[in-house]
Structures are given as structure tokens and as C-alpha cells.
């Protein structure tokens, strides 16, 4: 007890529950139906998507250091398999919502690097026309509902999206992602309760990268061994997943999706993953973890390299293909940076647009009047 309160608990090589301590070799989920059914092209596409996320995120670092990105920047490097694995399973009535570490999810649902990079630099060609920034990527046409800044605030929203799917009588779901730090927010508990009480097809995905900003799990969550287990308190199904193994992510998430589609019941999934960079660009991340820990994860559990290795072994990928996929991704990211540089800012007149649907769409049907933007 004493130790927990008075000393900085530096976690040693990241502790996963016993059941997950297996050697990082070829995935035992490769033959799971949902993965076995993938064609070579689909496998390569999945790998490519993960590589693209990584290179985009890494290019962002340079843009940030050049002073072109202001505010916050939360990087997804190390967590690629979580977004890639889960989103690669989704259909037309499945929706995605997440917190502010949202670039990976955005790219996975199909947003372009250009609009994503331009948004980071606040340009009008950005996906939110420069009005959202890093934390607020949205793509409703791709069933992607953001990108939210307040920790845990998106959990009730995700539950609501699932509610709407059910209300309409559709077989669908909403994947509501959050970090390990969000699970202690009141809104999340309220969302859990509503999801379980009303049997809503929501899948709460806890991307557990071990740290909520600078506070490790041990120091922030009561009963830290397994955050997903809290679902039992609400009578919800739950599962834990190795986030470095994209096949495992797919296999176990598909179970949750089935539950949502067929029984309209919620699941809490805790996916163990890791981030190589600080919580955000402003985080020097020296105060709460060891360099060794990052190095160990990179060398033994990097999701992109593990999948690459697996596909090379299976002769789906070749070294040349790996090289060219990485090169293309880097070039695509560089081109996005140039696109962002050359794009214009929004104008002062744009500041007061997109506040109200009724004002942006004034027409003969509009009944409201009066002053709505003040001076």
C-alpha cells in the first residue's frame, strides 16, 4: 500500500495477465475462420493499412516539430493492429467512435492522408475544414463519428449510435473505443449500464496501452489486473486480447460483432497494446516508464513487424513487396505533408460557418429568425 502511494511505480516489462503470456511467434489465430478466409490480396491490404498508419503518424512528428501542428497530437504508433484488426471486420451497419488518439481509426475507415494531414495543420482542405484538429477527425459517410477530446465522453455517444442501429431494426453495431484511462470516468459507467440494461449492440473497446498519460494502470485503476472484468458488474460479456497480434484481434472481435449483430448484446473488449511515443507530443514520457520497456516491446511485440514476419513466412509477402509498400506509404505521407503546406487556411468568414445546421441550410422551410451569432 505504502509503496503505491509514495513512490513512482515504474512498471517493468509490461505485465499482461498470465493467460496472455505466450511467446510472440506465428499467431495461433491464423487459422481462425475469419482470418483463414482472407485471400492473399486481403492479407497484403491489411498489412499495407497498418504500414500506412505507422508512416503517417511518424511523418506527423516532423510536421509537429516544424511548428506546423499546434495543440495536441496523440500518436498511434505501436497500436496499429487494434484499429486495423477491428475495423477490417466491419460492415455497412457497423459504426466507429473513439477518443482523441483517432488517426489510426480514421485512416482505417478510409480517410485520405491528405485530408488528415491538412486538418492537423488547420487548413481548409482538412477533413473538418480546419475546425477540429488532431482530436476531431470525422467521416460520417464512412460510419466514423470522431475523434473526441473529453476522456470517456464518447462512450455514451457510442452507446447512442448502437441504440439508433437497434431502433431502426438493423443488424449492426457500434465500436466505441477508449483508452485504459477512460474506464474510470463516470460517463463510461453510465454507458455500460445503459448498454447492458437495454441490450444495445455496442462493443466497448478498451485500448489498454498501460498508461493513462503518465499514470500507469496500477496507479489509476482499482483492480488493475483486468479492466474488462468490470463488465461483469453490469452483466456484460467481456474478453481480453493481445493487441500485437492482428489475427487475434480479428478473431476475438468477430465474436463480439456476432453477439452484437445476432443478439443485440454488448461486449467489453480489452486489447493489450502499447504506444512507443508519449501520451502526446508534449509528453517527455521519461517520468513514468523505462526506455528498456519501449525497446523490449519494439523488439518482441511490434504488431507491424510481427505481421510482416508472419506473412513473409507464409510467402504472402516478399522482401521487395515489404520495401515497396513501406516506400509508398512514406511517399504518400510526404505528399500529404506537402499538400497540407500548400493548402490555404480557412478565412475569417469561415469562423462563423458550420455552427448550426439551420443556418447553413437556410431556405424556404426555415422558420427560425433572430440573431444567432452575436457581436
Amino acid at each position: 500500500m505504502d509503496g503505491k502511494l509514495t513512490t513512482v511505480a515504474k512498471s517493468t516489462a509490461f505485465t499482461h495477465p498470465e493467460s496472455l503470456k505466450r511467446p510472440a511467434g506465428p499467431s495461433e489465430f491464423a487459422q481462425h475462420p475469419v482470418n483463414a478466409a482472407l485471400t492473399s490480396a486481403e492479407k497484403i491490404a491489411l498489412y499495407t493499412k497498418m504500414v500506412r498508419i505507422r508512416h503517417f503518424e511518424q511523418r506527423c512528428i516532423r510536421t509537429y516539430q516544424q511548428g506546423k501542428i499546434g495543440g495536441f497530437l496523440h500518436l498511434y504508433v505501436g497500436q496499429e493492429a487494434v484499429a486495423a484488426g477491428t475495423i477490417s471486420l466491419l460492415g455497412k451497419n457497423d459504426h466507429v467512435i473513439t477518443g482523441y488518439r483517432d488517426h489510426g481509426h480514421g485512416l482505417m475507415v478510409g480517410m485520405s492522408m491528405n485530408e488528415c494531414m491538412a486538418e492537423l495543420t488547420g487548413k481548409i482542405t482538412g477533413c473538418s475544414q480546419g475546425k477540429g484538429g488532431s482530436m476531431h477527425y470525422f467521416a460520417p459517410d464512412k460510419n466514423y463519428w470522431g475523434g473526441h477530446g473529453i476522456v470517456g465522453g464518447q462512450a455514451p455517444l457510442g452507446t447512442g449510435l448502437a441504440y439508433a442501429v437497434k431502433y431502426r431494426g438493423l443488424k449492426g453495431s457500434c465500436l466505441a473505443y477508449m483508452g485504459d484511462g477512460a474506464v474510470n470516468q463516470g460517463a463510461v459507467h453510465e454507458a455500460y449500464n445503459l448498454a447492458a440494461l437495454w441490450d444495445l449492440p455496442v462493443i466497448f473497446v478498451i485500448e489498454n496501452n498501460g498508461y493513462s498519460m503518465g499514470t500507469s494502470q496500477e496507479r489509476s485503476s482499482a483492480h488493475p489486473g483486468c479492466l474488462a472484468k468490470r463488465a461483469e458488474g453490469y452483466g456484460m460479456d467481456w474478453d481480453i486480447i493481445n493487441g500485437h497480434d492482428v489475427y487475434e484481434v480479428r478473431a476475438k472481435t468477430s465474436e463480439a460483432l456476432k453477439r452484437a449483430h445476432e443478439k443485440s448484446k454488448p461486449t467489453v473488449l480489452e486489447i493489450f497494446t502499447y504506444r512507443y511515443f508519449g501520451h502526446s507530443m508534449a509528453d517527455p514520457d521519461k517520468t513514468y516508464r523505462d526506455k528498456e520497456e519501449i525497446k523490449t516491446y519494439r523488439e518482441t511485440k511490434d504488431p507491424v513487424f510481427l505481421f510482416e514476419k508472419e506473412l513473409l513466412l507464409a510467402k504472402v509477402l516478399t522482401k521487395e513487396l515489404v520495401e515497396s509498400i513501406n516506400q509508398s506509404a512514406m511517399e504518400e505521407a510526404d505528399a500529404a505533408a506537402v499538400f497540407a503546406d500548400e493548402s490555404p487556411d480557412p478565412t475569417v468568414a469561415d469562423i462563423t460557418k458550420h455552427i448550426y445546421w439551420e443556418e447553413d441550410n437556410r431556405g424556404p422551410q426555415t422558420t427560425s429568425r433572430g440573431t444567432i451569432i452575436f457581436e
Partner: protein
Amino acid sequence: MPVISYREALRAAMREELKRDENVVIMGEEVAQFNGAYKVTEGLLKEFGPKRIVDTPISEAGFIGLGIGASMLGIRPVMELMFWSFSYVAFDQIVNNAGNIRYMSGGLIHCPIVIRGPANGGTNVGATHSHTPEAILASHPGIKVVCPATPYDAKGLLKAAIRDNDPVYVMENTILYNDKGEVPDEDYIVPIGVADIKREGSDLTIVAHGRAVITSLKAAEILEKEHGVSVEVVDLRSIRPLDEETILASVRKTHRALLVEENKPFCGVDAQVAYLIQARAFDDLDAPIGRVSSIDAPQIYCKRMEDLQLPHPARVVEAALKVLA
């Protein structure tokens, strides 16, 4: 024309809109089986069933966030807050999510939600249950706020709110729920952003919203009968958007303005109205703008004192005479 209560007017609005649009869902604590804490939703569960009239647990952040999320996919939730005082536990959802999502997405999304419920003091329930947050909410661009004072306005504004594609927050008043007035049977709306001259006059303009309108009308009667003053009462009806033109036209006519609100003084709605009047009708003012707000303290429990803490006709008359001096 039928004469019904403010409460019945709200219920009629919801019933008509539930019939009109299958996306409309009524949600809140005790709205279904209990028939509503203040009986506003009485009978709706029976008529529309549990899919349309939904009882929620005590979980404002949860169910309001849920409603907002659902609205992004086209559901039109009408969420009841038993008291607007309870909105503060859901403030993040109400202001950060509902109010900002459209803007932060660059106009890709909108949230056609309604949150409604009583926002009033004067019921002897103490400081934490007597809030009037219309000014705080209206200060956020992205949000609309309306305050009906009469049954006619209650029905018309709630219908307009439900049909509006932006978040509209409706400030009701438990004390007004029993007030009766003429309300047409047929379909009508009161457009959002349009004030109403509840009483015409020539010597003084009183601007008010919500129950303060009723208080001001009583004061106007006294001012006419006992002081020979002709008072015009402007009912804002809508806080954001604000009908600036009606306010200004009245002040330009009478040259003297008194603002009456149940908000506490600091940044209450009337602070904004006062700025507006002095900025745009400066040369028409024959006296400084007067103001009657609630006495600046948390809502007191003692009923006799609470009645004095809120604006009451005598205090309004006194303030009016000062403006007319």
C-alpha cells in the same frame, strides 16, 4: 379555442410530433411508467408504447450522451430533465458534444436533439434544484435555448424545437405548468427566434423571459392603475437566437427600458440584452436601463424569503418607477 394548461400544451406538442415523425423518441427519468415526475408526459406511454417513450435510469450523462449519439444517425430524441439543475452532471455531453460536434466536423454532422424540463426557482426546493441555466447554455454557439411563458408558446416552441435540426434546449417552469391559456387544436409552431409583445404600451418597455413575463404583466397592471403609466411587455420567448429587432423597436418607441429575469445578475440573459439596447438604441434612451434579477445568492430555502429573492411585482414596479423618474 380550447383553453388548456401549459403542461397539457407541452404534452400535446410531444404527442403531435410523435405521430408526425417516427424518429421522435421521448426519453427521461420517470417519463413512461410514472407518467412523468410533473405529469407532463402522462398518457404517452399508453398511446405510443415503450419503444417511443423510454424510461431511463438516473444517468443524465449517460442517456443524454446516448441521445446525442443516436441523433447523429437521425433519431430525434426529446430528453426530459426532471430539473435543469440536473444538467450539470451531463454538462460535457450537453455543451461539448451536442454543441460542438457539428463545428468540429466542419459541418458534416448535426445533432437534432431536444432537452426539456423545468428551469426555475420559487418552489421551496433549495439551491441545488432551482437553477435557471439559460444564460450559461445560450453563451455557447451551437446551442439554441427557448423559454416559453404561456401555454400557447409552450406548445408552439416545443414543436418548433423538435422539428429543428440543431440542439434546442427548452426551459420550462413547474409553477407555470398549471397556468391555463388558449391553445389552438390545429398544427402550428412558434418560430424560434421571435419575441412577442405580450402587452402594448408607450411609456416603458419591460423585457422579460419565462415566468418573469408573468410577473412583469402583473407589475404592468399595477403601474397603469396606480401610476398612470403605460407599459409595454416584450416576451423574449427565445434566448438564442435572440429577437433583437423587437426589443429595439420597443425601446425606440418608449425610450425607457426595464429588464426583468429570474436569472441571478452576473451574466444573466439581461446582461446581454442591456448591452444590445445601449449599443443599438443609445440615442433613444431617456434613462439608464433598469434591471430586476433574482437576488444574488444561492436559492434560499425559506419560502417567504425565496418569494422575495425572485423578482416579484412590487420590486418590478419600484424599479419601473425609478426608470421613469
